[in-house]
C-alpha cells in the first residue's frame, strides 16, 4: 500500500525555535508538496519540489524553507517559529504524470507557544 509518512502527528514548540517537519514517501514519486491547513483558509501551498535538490515557492513561503536531499524525503523548516505558524501541516506526493498532489500524509498538528 502506498504511503506518505509524516514524522510527528503532534508537535509543540516555542517561539523562536527552529522546527523541522519530516516527510517520507515510498512510491518513488518525483513531486512532493508541503501545505498548511487552517479553518476558513483551506489548504495553502508553502513549497513544492519536482526533483531532488529542486524546489519552488508556493503561495505562502515566507518564514519557511525546505530541503530535498533524497527523492523520498522532503523536509519543511521553520527558521524561527512564530505563533502564527500554529497550524496543521500536510505533506503530499505525486508522480511526474500528475503534478497535482495525489497522496497525502496524515498531517502534523504544530503548536507554537
Amino acid at each position: 500500500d502506498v504511503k506518505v509518512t509524516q514524522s510527528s502527528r503532534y508537535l509543540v514548540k516555542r517561539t523562536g525555535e527552529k522546527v523541522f517537519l519530516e516527510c517520507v514517501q515510498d512510491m518513488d514519486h518525483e513531486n512532493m508538496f508541503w501545505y498548511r491547513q487552517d479553518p476558513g483558509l483551506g489548504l495553502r501551498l508553502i513549497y513544492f519540489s519536482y526533483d531532488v535538490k529542486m524546489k519552488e515557492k508556493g503561495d505562502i513561503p515566507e518564514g519557511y524553507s525546505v530541503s530535498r536531499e533524497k527523492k523520498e524525503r522532503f523536509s519543511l523548516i521553520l527558521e524561527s517559529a512564530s505563533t502564527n505558524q500554529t497550524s496543521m501541516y500536510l505533506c503530499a506526493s505525486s508522480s511526474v504524470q500528475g503534478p497535482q498532489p495525489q497522496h497525502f500524509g496524515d498531517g502534523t498538528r504544530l503548536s507554537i507557544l
Partner: protein
Amino acid sequence: TQLLEQSPQFLSIQEGENLTVYCNSSSVFSSLQWYRQEPGEGPVLLVTVVTGGEVKKLKRLTFQFGDARKDSSLHITAAQPGDTGLYLCAGKGGYAGKSTFGDGTTLTVKP
C-alpha cells in the same frame, strides 16, 4: 492566485438523502480534483477530471466538470454515514505543480 469557492460550506443530511456540492471559479483550470478528508487524516484523492463536460462516477458519487472548465459538482446518491467528511476541490492552472484548493464542504450524514 486562482480562487475556488465551494458551497455549501456545511451540509447536514439524513442517511438515504441525495446531495450536491459545488466548486466554482472565474478561472479556467486544466484539471480539477476532488478529495475527501476525515478527521485526523490527510485528504484522499477521489477523482481527477480533465475534459470540459466530463462526468465520472465512483459508486454513488458522480463528478462533473463544467463545459468551460471553471466549475465542478459532486453529487452523492443515497448518502451513508460513511460519506461524512470534508470534501475539497482543487484546480490546477497552467503552472506546473500548483493546485489551488477550495475551503471545503463539511458533510455530516446522520444515521
